[in-house]
């Protein structure tokens, strides 16, 4: 650590550049004090022993794991099935929403209406309506699907509306000069969209897209409300049978475990494109 008043090193961590040598010292000390106080409060709380036993007992964590992990496989299936459909359906919505000219007015209205509607209704209510309403219609094929399928349908309906708006923001962020260049080369509107606008737009919206998908992953737990047995449901079952909440902790851990690699993968993807397209250094 540089003594106060000494010239700062030219290269340093971001924190030390922001705070200076003395600042780092102070911030470290205050963080430690803060953590110590929080730990003290938690440890000395009257119910700490009970909470540790019912949430974090090692035996229960291990005992709940197989059951909750088996349920989590269902969450993964819900997630992948829904995300696959959403990526395509939402893109379609975004493109339809952006169609120019009076001919496409009705299509635009349908797309905008859809997005407004499904961004507005809570997922829980859509789950009830789809999960209990569609079977109630008594139609062939449509009404005889499994609750898993209805769960996926509800997730797709709601999240496509969000993701469509993310795509739209990406499409609108591509400078009109790109479209002009493509059109001037005699590419049709559709081919301009497909080869020039969408590839750039999609790359640009990968971070917000991932954000929505993390939300989706967590919301797969809500599908348990229409009867799909997944991780949160299994954790609940473990709690009911053993009077112990370790299953919830296991489930939470599994979700985090899924999210973090996905976030790092996205970072890597963005960095790769950035490095590929842009100059390595000054020319």
């Amino acid at each position: 650590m540089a003594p106060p008043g000494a010239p700062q090193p030219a290269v340093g961590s971001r924190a030390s550049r922001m705070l200076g040598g003395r600042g780092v010292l102070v911030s470290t000390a205050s963080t430690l004090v803060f953590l110590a106080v929080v730990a003290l409060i938690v440890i000395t709380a009257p119910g700490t022993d009970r909470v540790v036993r019912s949430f974090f007992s090692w035996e229960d964590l291990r005992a709940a794991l197989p059951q909750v992990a088996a349920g989590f496989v269902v969450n993964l299936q819900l997630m992948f099935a829904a995300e696959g459909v959403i990526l395509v359906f939402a893109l379609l919505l975004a493109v339809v929403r952006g169609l120019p000219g009076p001919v496409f007015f009705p299509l635009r209205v349908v797309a905008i209406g859809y997005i407004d509607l499904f961004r507005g209704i809570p997922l829980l209510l859509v789950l009830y309506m789809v999960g209990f309403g569609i079977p109630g219609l008594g139609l062939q094929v449509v009404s005889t699907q499994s609750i898993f399928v209805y769960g996926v349908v509800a997730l797709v309906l709601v999240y496509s509306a969000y993701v469509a708006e993310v795509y739209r923001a990406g499409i609108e962020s591509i400078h009109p000069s790109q479209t002009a260049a493509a059109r001037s080369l005699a590419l049709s509107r559709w081919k301009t969209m497909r080869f020039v606008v969408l590839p750039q737009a999609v790359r640009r919206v990968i971070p917000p897209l991932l954000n929505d998908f993390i939300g989706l992953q967590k919301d797969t737990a809500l599908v348990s409300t229409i009867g799909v047995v997944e991780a949160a449901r299994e954790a609940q079952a473990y709690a009911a049978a053993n009077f112990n909440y370790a299953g919830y902790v296991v489930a939470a851990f599994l979700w985090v475990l899924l999210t973090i690699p996905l976030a790092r993968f996205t970072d890597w993807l963005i960095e790769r494109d950035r490095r590929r397209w842009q100059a390595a250094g000054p020319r």
Partner: protein
Amino acid sequence: MSGDGAVLRLDGVHKSFGPVEVLKGIDLDVSAHEVVCLIGASGSGKSTMLRCINLLEPVDAGRIVVHGEDITARGVDVNRIRRHIGIVFQAYNLFPHMTVLDNITLAPREVLGMGRAEARHRADELLARFGLLDKRDEYPDRLSGGQQQRTAIVRALAMRPDIMLLDEVTSALDPELVAEVLNVIRDLAAEGMTMVIASHEMGFVRDTAHRVCFLDQGVILEEGPPDRMFTEPGNPRTKQFLQRIIEAGRM
């Protein structure tokens, strides 16, 4: 130069953006192999005129005729017309997510239905000719401005257009990169490419243009061969414009 019959004709072309009338009746005939340069202050309508010829902007009144066909008529297939008219922009407008090669071969493959191998072969020929062959697999952002603009020219040429429109193609370049781009255009002129060029590079205009048009507030105020336009302009506004250019040291 004239006598071949006009390849391109503008007939009383008007264009407004909202309340602002940018083109107030442009008449122009361009013959085959002719190089017409448009000069004039920023905002005089040069860019808009070129964008109208490429049908990137619809005209409000008047017509534009290419090879005898009214391309501003209703129901004309704009993509068919654009195949024959190349345009190069001030800001290059290359596609940043594609390599130089893909930038060049996209339209030949997707519009002309050319095979990958043939499109690549044609691109290689053009790249070699303009000294860019070693940049074939680079992404545009890794090239210098001059290289990017030459790539944009090659991209337009890959469609084998009859007419090239160049919209201030050196205005965004560092001074030391201007020459390499202008040399490419001189080459094209020498080859007999029909071109309409908006430019502020008066030296280049003077030695390359067959005819110079001075645009002022949306009309062609004066036109003539470069020798006369630069030495004895007839219109006082032309004179004033050229005087300012000389004062700015750009001639």
